[in-house]
């Protein structure tokens, strides 16, 4: 079985729980994406990684690893999921269209907070995930977390412009998969 030369780099990124997104500004990542996007390569790598207990998964414009069996207890996973829900909720409150390909700077968000009390409350509620006190620190910490999970990347360090990667769709997808029973849904106010 022929595996591509970039296999070890792919493993290094995916085994950390990060994503390889198609719209990454990083040349190295987009090269890896193109390698994985090749059908033959994907099949070979799928087999290859399956031998060491990783399942190579393909999403809409991103790749990631999952496991054949569960390794983490439910409690921790729910904690993680809750944190993501808070983060996604905060950024979607900032802008409904916050999603793959969206560009923003932290200062835009901070400026909005001054005039948007809802956004401010939501940012302050992120305190519990970030352990910081002032707005800028909370936001920076949240962004750091999103960067290390490779949902967002710093596209321009000079203007501090960030870009949302296609892997963000994973979070949206996760949210969409949660099913709310109709009677509960009806209770939720508009």
């Amino acid at each position: 079985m022929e595996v591509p030369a970039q296999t070890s780099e792919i493993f290094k990124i995916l085994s950390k729980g990060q994503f390889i997104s198609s719209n990454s500004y990083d040349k190295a990542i987009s090269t890896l994406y193109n390698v994985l996007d090749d059908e033959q390569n994907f099949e070979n790598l799928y087999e290859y990684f399956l031998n060491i207990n990783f399942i190579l998964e393909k999403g809409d414009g991103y790749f990631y690893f999952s496991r054949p069996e569960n390794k983490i207890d439910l409690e921790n996973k729910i904690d993680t999921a809750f944190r993501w829900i808070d983060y996604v909720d905060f950024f979607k409150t900032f802008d409904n269209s916050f999603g793959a390909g969206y560009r923003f700077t932290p200062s835009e968000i901070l400026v909005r907070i001054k005039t948007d009390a809802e956004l401010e409350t939501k940012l302050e509620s992120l305190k519990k995930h970030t352990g910081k006190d002032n707005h800028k620190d909370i936001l920076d910490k949240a962004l750091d977390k999103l960067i290390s999970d490779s949902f967002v990347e710093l596209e321009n360090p000079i203007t501090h412009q960030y870009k949302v990667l296609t892997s963000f769709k994973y979070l949206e997808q996760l949210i969409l998969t949660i099913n709310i029973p109709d009677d509960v849904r009806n209770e939720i106010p508009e």
Partner: protein
Amino acid sequence: MNTFSNIKELLRALNDGRDLLTEMFKKRKSADYKYEYALDLIEHNENRIQYLIDRSVIRQNGNNLEIDDLYLQFFEQVLEANEEINTSYINENLEKVKQNIDYYFNEHNEQRKYEYLRVIKNTLRKIGVITLRNVVDLKRNIDNTFKSEPTFKNKKAKLINLDNKRKDITKLIEQTESLISEDDITFFKTATDEELNRIIVQLKLQLQKCTHNLIEIERQVIDFLNQIQQQSGVVEKLRQIKYLKDQFRLEAETDIKQVISINNSVIFEPNPSYPLKLSLEYLQTSEEAFASIKKIAQRQKSGIKLSQPVADIISDEYLETQIEEEIQINLEEVKNGFVAGSYNLFDFVMNYKFGKKVTFDERVTIYCQMVSQYETVFEITEQYSEKEEIEFAMIYPK
């Protein structure tokens, strides 16, 4: 209501009001243009404004002014700045072509026939240009709506409307195409006119271009609508989930536990670390590793000076010289003494006065030592004597 009596008058009026009209055209999107601003612009000459209002170039609504729709459309059309996509206009022209074709056939006078042909040519040319411009406008409008329409519901509604416009234009293109190549084929075959042929070729090319563009626009609209659908779906779901989460009901009332428990993505796992030891051979041979080691060693250097362990002072007792005397038996001297006398060796040794006390056994040893050492200077006889159970040979000096 006064109207312009000739084109000259119209152009002069427009020219007189050009500053005001330019300014108002620029601000046509914001509905109100204050009467006072207009006065400022034309040097407080109320008559000039009134002149334009009288001839319906400008309309007055209370304190606000706006350009009349007729002129506004005219400006927009000519300057290709219109945002409204007007499909009826194409339709109208299409009808006009059909009617003129009928007139053309009914007419026998060559001169008038030519007149109708001219109208048809003009209209066909217009159809091509208008259709193309409409397509361009449509594309720009769709882009603008998707990117800048702030209200979510309106964005969706506008995109759907624009998509309907796209369908209309497509239909009109089809009609035009069938008109020139099927319906009135007799006309286009019989009215042999070089220019008409050229216009038809041009029109076909333009229509083809439009069709291609429309296909792309359709794809884009579908894509945009999907994105909006997806986004609004996510936003709505997210709002509900966040609500339940904040009410601490999410775990109990949704299937989040099942969803999460079957999700074995590595992203849920904490960041793994692989503490691999470096190969010793690498550490010993690689220049690079050596450089790193030196660097780390430099960093590790702490400010604390290690105190060298100092030994205690050596005590004087150890330095004192001690004399121990030991008396050695000088066999040479014993021999000399013996040779000078006449005793036998055994008795001589037994009675010899050494500097210290020497036991009988030791004296026997000395006897044996002397015999073996100085055999040559002694005379060893065959006689034997005995003393304290020791038999010994009688030995004399030579």
